[in-house]
Structure formats: structure tokens, C-alpha cells
């Protein structure tokens, strides 16, 4: 057993210290010394990863209290297996993104923003480290605010572009709604418990209603469906390594908050149902919106909504199981959700880096201008396809493992014949539907972007990206394969995290099918690899004949005659037209010799445009109306005063007289 190894607890602390110092040094070196920045950042994240790994393999939680006061509160840091899980993911993505950015966002290409980008990158990583380690409400909020702000500066690195500025502004505004809610949450918590210090307080049942505040606050950050309004434009307009960080890690910090406080605080009885319902909604509608997108990064952003939904299904059923006392399937669902946090970080990071590679090579995110890239960019194509297989939850990669664990949890809930059956059956069906739609969506992406013929000049002149951009993608892809073929390796860590979340769920062996799953996945990988290799050899031996595609008697085929992203997904987006509300502009060819015809379809940000913006306009109208009260006429101000005093007098008098 891991636990029996003698370990000195101080080691984790030293590793954390090294990580923090290196990242701070990186901030200093960011502007001028790029290589030093890269070296320091990589050392820092390696140390952080080592610290997280030590906790995860069973060296015990690390806790450190200092007499030093920051913001009037004593410093209290804690790294247990839940925060270590998220810290590990942060370090992996931060390292990959740092290497990637050294080739993707260079001083030569972006002289104004490259140095700032490196510096804010480290600030972001550091502030997330603070959020993960802080065990005090004040420090949590400080870290959270720094995290929000630094992410804003990273999103708007390319702020000459008005779209980027708009996306950044939306992100900042929505994030601060979340910050406000979290301020309220922590303040109320501090008032009711008498201390800002955080920790398990399950026995204080009166704290349960605070869960809703926290759910909305962290839900905005996590991008849960109706609260995701900031997410698509921010992810699409940020530089790709930042998108990978936002999607891979930043959203997960929202999930971290939910997991953390759902474990520490008592929850209302219906909380699990609400979280699971939100999860199912996010999963299905996230993928539906993704299908309607034509911008490759916006599409990936909506898949983040979907995957956060899957994570929340796991968390929600874990909470339901806690409330109803079914440890067996509750653990599985929660472990599936937590593993999906890792998995989504890995494959979504990979996909965003891949999309960045495409953007870097062609200069466009518009899928209808791409096509046929696999000839020019074989590495990017292969790695993106691998990420696509993983995100669709297909064997033999990691997405399958976590979704399968969530499914096992749902099936367990069905078999337990409790009241959870009525939620578990639809959830399982909709989760399967989500997987199918995600597959359709990624067939669309891969088919339109990488296969076929180039639709534009820039796509035809694309070039493969350099080693510094391929290496991080290879690393993330390696992670996807490793978790896919050897899920048993990560089981102890997940089991510990779940044990930390709920004390009673600590000691349980891995489910028997997990071993078999690993073997089967390995088999699928080996057989698939062998078949692919044999086919490749055959093709190489026979040779290829180049001929025009779809040459069915038509003499002048052009690349524009290919399926577009919109036409491929048309059927499915029509199913979801009730929520997607696609905007269609069509000019049919008419007459014997039609001169012009056009067809243009666009999926708007329905929630933003139909709900948030009207609400904002209403508030603005109210504010403008209220502003008429301030006109500068002293006499009228005195009337206000008189009315106020009269009302007060009326209140007092009516209160005094019986």
C-alpha cells in the first residue's frame, strides 16, 4: 500500500514553495528574458505537479498555517487530494501552454503583447494556485479576483481587434457578477460561522441555503448552461493557448469550487437534483449549440459547456447518493465526474492547441474557409483527430473511461430502485445522446477542416507548425492515451479525492470492470494501430491515384461544392431550432438564367441575445429613468427631502400608535 511508505510532510511544502518562487521569478523575467521565463515557468509547474503527485499517491494532505497575516487573516494553506487533482491539471496545462506560446505568440509576431502575455500567464497560474491552496475565505477571494483579472488581460492580448475587446468586456462583466455572488457567499459564511477560516462544517445544517449562492457564483465560472454567456466569445477570441487554459483549467476552477464546498458545507436536500439537471441541460444544449457553430474555436467552446455538464452529472449524482446513502454508485458517478475534469482538461487543451495550430497556419477560424489541411498539416490533423476521438467518448481513449464511470454510476442509481431512478434513466439516455451528437459534431469538424479540398487560398498554402507547438500537443495526447489504456493508474488518486470529499467513501477497491476496461482499451488501441499500419503499408505499396472529387459527369467541380459545416450539421441543428433559433438568410435562384443566389445561416448566442441583453436593456432603462430625479433643481430636492421625512414620520407614527 502507498500509505505505509514513510514520508516527511515538509517535502510537499518545499515543492509548493519552489513552484511559487519559480513562477514569481517568471513574472520578473517575462518581459525581456523569454528563455529564462520558459525555464522558470516549466520548473515551477514541474514542482507544482510533483507536490500534487505526492499528495495524490498518498503522502497525506499538506497543511500549513503561518502567523503571518495577509489582509487581516492568518495565512492558512491546505493541499488535500481534491485540490491536488486540480493543481495537477493546472500544472500540466500551464506547462503545455507555456511551451506552445513560445512559438505561437512570439515577440516577433506580437511585439506589443507577447511580453505581457507571458507575464499574465504566470500571474494567472499563481492566482489559481492561491485559489486552490487557500483555506481562508479572504485569501480565496483575493486569489479568485486576481485569477479573474489576469484571465481578462490574457483574453484581450490582441486588443486591437474590436471583437476581442467586446469578448473581454463581456467576460469581465459576467465574471464580476460571479465575484459579487462569491463575496456574498463567503461573507455570509464568515458571519454565520464567526471565522473566515474554511474547512469541513457538515454539522452546521443552517448553512445549507448558502449552497445556492455558491452554485450560481461558481456555475458562472464553470460555464453551466444558462450561465455560460461569457464563455463562447471569450474562448473564441482569446489566443489559442489562453483558450486551452480557460477551457482546460479556468472552467474547472469553477467546478473545483462546487466540489470543494459541496463537500465541506451541508447541502440542501434537492441540491444534487439541481446540479444533475443543470449538468444534463448543459451537456445536451452545449453540444447542440456546438453543432450550429461555424467558427472552430467557438465550436470547441460550446463543447466545454457540454463537458462541464458531464462533470456536473457526476457531481450531482454523487451528491444525491450522499443524501440518500448509496455509496456504491455515488462514488462511481463522482469519480467519473472528477476523472472527466482531468480528461476534459487534457483533450480540450489538445483540441484548442490544434485549433490554434490551424489558425496559426491559415489565419482564419472560419471552417467554411478551411479544408484539406491533412495533406499540409499531418501532425496537427492526427493530434486533433485523436483529441476528437477522446472528446466524443470513444474507446480506446480517456473520454470513454470517465463517461463510462459516470454511466456505471447512473446504472447503479437505476438498479438501486430508489427515487433516483426517475432522474438516472433520462440522464443516462441524454448522456448517450450527448455522446452521439458530439461524435456528429467532431465528424463535421474533422471532415470540413482537415479532409476534402482546400476552400480558400490560405487553406491551400497552410504549413505545419513547428516543434514547440507540436510537443505540447503530443504531451497532452500522450496523457489522453495513458489514461485511456491504463485507467487503473489513476484510480488510487481519484479514490483518495473522493474519500476526502466524503469521509465514508474512502476504502473501496476499484470496480472489477476497470481492469478489464484497461485491457480492452489496450487491445482496441493495438489492433486499431495494427490495422491502420497495414492499410498504410498497402496504400504506400499500391500508390495513390489523384482524381477530382465528386466528378460525376460534371466538368468543373470546385472546392465550394463540398459539404459545408452548416449543411453537414443542418439536420441536427433543425432538431434543436427551438433553442438555437438559427438566423437564415436565403436568396433562391429564380428564373431561367438565375443571376444571383445566396444562402447564409448563423446561430446566435441565444441566451445572451434573448435573455441577458434584454434584461440589461431593462436595467439601463430603469437607470436612465431614475437619473431624471437628478436634475439640479434645489427646490425639487427639498420636495424629495420632505416626502422622505413625511414617509419616515408615517412609519414611525404607525409603528408607535397601537
Amino acid at each position, binding site marked *: 500500500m502507498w500509505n505505509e511508505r514513510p514520508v516527511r510532510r515538509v517535502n510537499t511544502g518545499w515543492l509548493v514553495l519552489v513552484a511559487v518562487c519559480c513562477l514569481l521569478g517568471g513574472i520578473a523575467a517575462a518581459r525581456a528574458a523569454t528563455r529564462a521565463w520558459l525555464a522558470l515557468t516549466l520548473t515551477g509547474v514541474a514542482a507544482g505537479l510533483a507536490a500534487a503527485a505526492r499528495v495524490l499517491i498518498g503522502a497525506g494532505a499538506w497543511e500549513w498555517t503561518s502567523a503571518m497575516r495577509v489582509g487581516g487573516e492568518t495565512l492558512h494553506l491546505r493541499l488535500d487530494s481534491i485540490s491536488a487533482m486540480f493543481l495537477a491539471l493546472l500544472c500540466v496545462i500551464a506547462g503545455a501552454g507555456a511551451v506552445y506560446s513560445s512559438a505561437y505568440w512570439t515577440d516577433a509576431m506580437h511585439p506589443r503583447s507577447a511580453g505581457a502575455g507571458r507575464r499574465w500567464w504566470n500571474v494567472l497560474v499563481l492566482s489559481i494556485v492561491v485559489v486552490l491552496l487557500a483555506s481562508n475565505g479572504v485569501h480565496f477571494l483575493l486569489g479568485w479576483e486576481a485569477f479573474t483579472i489576469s484571465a481578462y488581460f490574457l483574453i484581450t492580448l490582441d486588443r486591437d481587434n474590436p471583437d476581442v475587446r467586446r469578448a473581454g468586456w463581456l467576460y469581465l462583466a459576467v465574471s464580476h457578477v460571479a465575484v459579487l455572488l462569491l463575496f456574498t457567499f463567503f461573507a455570509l459564511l464568515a458571519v454565520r460561522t464567526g471565522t473566515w477560516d474554511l474547512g469541513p462544517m457538515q454539522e452546521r445544517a443552517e448553512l445549507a441555503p448558502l449552497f445556492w449562492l455558491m452554485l450560481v457564483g461558481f456555475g458562472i465560472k464553470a460555464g453551466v448552461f444558462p450561465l455560460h454567456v461569457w464563455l463562447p466569445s471569450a474562448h473564441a477570441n482569446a489566443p489559442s493557448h489562453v483558450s486551452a487554459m480557460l477551457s482546460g483549467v479556468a472552467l474547472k476552477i469553477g467546478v473545483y469550487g462546487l466540489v470543494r464546498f459541496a463537500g465541506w458545507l451541508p447541502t440542501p436536500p434537492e441540491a444534487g437534483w439541481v446540479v444533475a439537471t443543470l449538468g444534463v441541460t448543459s451537456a445536451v444544449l452545449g453540444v447542440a449549440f456546438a453543432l450550429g457553430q461555424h467558427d472552430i474555436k467557438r465550436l470547441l467552446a460550446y463543447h466545454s459547456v457540454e463537458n462541464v455538464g458531464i462533470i456536473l452529472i457526476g457531481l450531482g449524482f454523487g451528491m444525491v447518493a450522499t443524501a440518500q446513502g448509496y455509496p456504491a454508485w455515488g462514488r462511481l458517478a463522482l469519480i467519473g465526474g472528477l476523472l472527466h475534469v482531468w480528461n476534459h482538461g487534457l483533450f480540450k487543451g489538445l483540441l484548442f492547441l490544434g485549433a490554434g495550430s490551424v489558425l496559426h497556419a491559415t489565419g482564419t477560424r472560419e471552417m467554411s474557409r478551411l479544408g484539406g489541411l491533412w495533406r499540409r498539416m499531418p501532425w496537427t490533423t492526427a493530434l486533433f483527430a485523436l483529441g476528437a476521438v477522446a472528446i466524443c467518448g470513444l474507446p480506446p481513449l480517456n473520454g470513454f473511461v470517465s463517461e463510462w464511470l459516470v454511466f456505471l454510476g447512473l446504472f447503479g442509481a437505476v438498479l438501486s430502485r430508489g427515487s433516483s431512478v426517475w432522474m438516472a434513466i433520462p440522464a443516462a439516455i441524454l448522456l448517450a445522446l450527448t455522446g452521439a451528437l458530439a461524435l456528429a459534431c467532431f465528424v463535421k469538424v474533422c471532415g470540413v477542416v482537415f479532409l476534402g479540398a482546400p476552400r480558400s487560398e490560405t487553406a491551400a498554402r497552410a504549413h505545419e507548425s513547428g516543434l514547440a507547438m507540436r510537443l505540447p500537443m503530443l504531451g497532452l495526447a500522450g496523457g489522453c492515451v495513458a489514461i485511456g489504456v491504463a485507467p487503473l493508474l489513476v484510480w488510487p488518486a481519484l479514490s483518495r479525492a473522493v474519500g476526502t470529499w466524503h469521509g465514508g467513501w474512502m476504502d473501496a477497491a476499484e470496480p472489477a470492470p476497470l481492469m478489464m476496461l484497461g485491457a480492452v482499451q489496450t487491445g482496441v488501441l493495438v489492433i486499431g494501430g495494427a490495422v491502420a499500419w497495414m492499410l498504410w503499408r498497402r496504400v504506400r505499396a499500391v500508390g495513390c491515384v489523384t482524381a477530382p472529387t465528386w466528378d460525376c459527369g460534371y466538368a468543373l467541380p470546385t472546392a465550394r461544392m463540398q459539404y459545408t459545416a452548416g449543411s453537414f450539421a443542418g439536420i441536427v441543428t433543425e432538431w434543436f431550432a427551438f433553442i438555437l433559433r438559427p438566423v437564415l438568410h436565403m436568396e433562391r435562384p429564380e428564373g431561367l438564367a438565375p443571376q444571383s443566389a445566396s444562402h447564409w445561416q448563423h446561430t446566435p448566442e441565444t441566451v445572451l441575445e434573448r435573455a441577458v441583453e434584454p434584461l440589461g436593456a431593462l436595467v439601463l432603462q430603469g437607470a436612465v429613468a431614475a437619473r431624471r430625479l*437628478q*436634475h*439640479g*433643481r*434645489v*427646490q*425639487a430636492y*427639498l*420636495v424629495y427631502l*420632505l416626502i422622505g421625512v413625511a414617509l419616515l414620520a408615517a412609519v414611525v*407614527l404607525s409603528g*408607535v*400608535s397601537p
Partner: protein
Amino acid sequence: MRDLNLLIGLAMGLNLVALGSSRLPSIIRATALQGVLLGIMPLLLEHDFGWQVVAVAVATAIGKGVVIPGLLQRAMRAAHIEREVEPFIGFVPSLLLGAFGTIAALAVARSLPLLPEHAKSLLVPGALASMLTGFVLLIGRVKAISQVCGYLIFENGIYLFGLLLIGSTPLLVEAGVLLDLTVGIFVIGIIVDRIQRAFDSLDTRKLTVLRE
């Protein structure tokens, strides 16, 4: 008590005079007369008054009745303004409001939980009526000088309330309030002067250009 009520009744009548007149000198005179009446009141309330009460009464009467009105008249002459030309609330509506306010003050004062020795006196209704009158003048008038008179009548109402507590509050506190007010009038006098120079008018409606 009857003498006191008589004086308060006179003061309430002067309120209506101030509300009903359009000429600034008569408003100022009404205010000055009210001030003198108020100055006499402590002498009627305190039965065994010493030199302090006399001194304060004299100071109040001189301050409210002579010094401040004198300052206002000087400001008025300097600004060449005699009349309130187009008030926000006309003179007849002002009078009606004032009369209504006086009646309402009498009605409200009856329902207030007062000490038995104050129940018969007109102090509370007089105070409320004066404060309302002050408010109506402040709200309804445009010229800065009539607004200052509004403030003064408003302060007279507060002074009347203060007389309720004459047993427990030393008159010196009241004298301090009066001093504050005198300083306030000085400041307003300076502001009136500035308004006059900046806008070539004493119309406070023109101050709206300063709102942002």
C-alpha cells in the same frame, strides 16, 4: 401659558404673511418680527429667570430680528431685487398649503404622545407649522433671498421645538444653534453675491447648469 400661546399664534400668522407676499422686503420683515417674538418667548417660559436668560433672549431677538434681516436687506439692495416674480408655487397655492399645513400640524400634534404640561400649549403645532412653511418657501420660491427666509422660518420652527426642552436644555445650546445659523446666513450671503456676479441673476433655477 396664554401669553405664550398668543405669541405663537402671532408667529403662525406671520408664517402666512411670509407665504402670501410677493415683495421681498415684506417677507424679510415678517421673518424679522417672528424672530423677535421668538426671542421674547423664553422670558415667558422661565419663571425665575436670571441674567443669562435675559441675555440669551435679547441676543436672539437682536440676532433674528435685526442682524440677519439687516444682512438680507443689504444683499437685496446689492442685487437690486425687490420682488419674487415667477415662483414655482404661486402665492395663493402657497397660502392654501400653509393654511392646510397649520391645520394639519394642529391635528397631528393632538395625536402625538406629548407630556401633559405641553398638551395645552401651541408650541408643537407652531413648530410643525413653521417648519412646513419654511419648506413651502424653500420649495416654492426661486429667488435666493426668499429661500434664505424659508431657512430662517424653518429654523424658527426648530427653535420652537427646542423651547419644549427648555427645562433640560440650557439656552446656551440654543444660542449656539443661532450662532451657527448666523454664520450660515453669512455664507449664503456670500453665495448670493457670487450667484449674482456669475449669472447676473439670483434665480436659483439657473444653478441647474452646475449639476454634473
